[in-house]
């Protein structure tokens, strides 16, 4: 049994390096990665500011990771979430799920992202190009629905 890698950090990460770390295990036949990036919303945003709850962010992501490991027979799992100021085009979040077969890896990666969105203690604030006041991004009802559908399975 492996221990999932969970990191909450301000500095950028190298997705290629992180994905390569989960390659090469003899039982890994499928590796699914998700990378969340900062959009510029057609030039309207200069940056996102991600506020987190230090300590709880790591603990909550580890709890979600443990749930994924209980649900699917994974061979490896890495989750990295950044905080601080993130510019358009920069990576915010990385999930890499390794499994023997692709269906488990796809499902686990999607489950993890749906739960990270609604349960990990991060909040996004938009810095606007037009000089308007910074504004907090509202949570979307669709995010709750995406997470809730996993409970029914």
């Amino acid at each position: 049994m492996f221990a999932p890698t969970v990191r909450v950090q301000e500095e950028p990460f190298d997705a290629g390096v992180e994905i390569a770390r989960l390659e090469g295990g003899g039982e890994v036949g499928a590796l699914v990665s998700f990378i969340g990036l900062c959009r510029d919303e057609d030039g309207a945003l200069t940056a996102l500011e991600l506020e987190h709850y230090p300590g709880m962010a790591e603990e909550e992501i580890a709890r979600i990771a443990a749930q994924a490991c209980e649900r699917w027979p994974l061979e490896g799992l890495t989750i990295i979430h950044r905080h601080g100021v993130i510019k358009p085009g920069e990576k915010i979040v990385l999930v890499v799920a390794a499994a023997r077969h692709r269906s488990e890896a796809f499902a686990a990666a999607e489950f993890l992202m749906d739960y990270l969105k609604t349960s990990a203690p991060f909040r996004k604030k938009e810095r606007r190009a037009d000089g308007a006041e910074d504004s907090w991004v509202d949570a979307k009802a669709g995010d709750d629905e995406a997470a809730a559908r996993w409970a029914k399975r």
Partner: protein
Amino acid sequence: MKALYFASVRERVGLAEEDIAPPGDIATVGDLMRWLATRGEGYAAAFANARTIRAAIDKTHAGHEAPIAQAREIAFFPPMTGG
């Protein structure tokens, strides 16, 4: 106990964290939010729509009915927008 405020709750309260000593009849997270809302204009604004505010006790999500008697640290925040 220590109260922590995040995002718009922090901005309205005007503090990131503080030590609080709620009266003995404040038993749950929901009670605590109603009590905090009475502490001033900023608090009232922060907790005006308490139904939408999430809470965590000692870094674990907690419902509004959760008892606070054993809590060392209670955090309040609007719904998450990470990922």
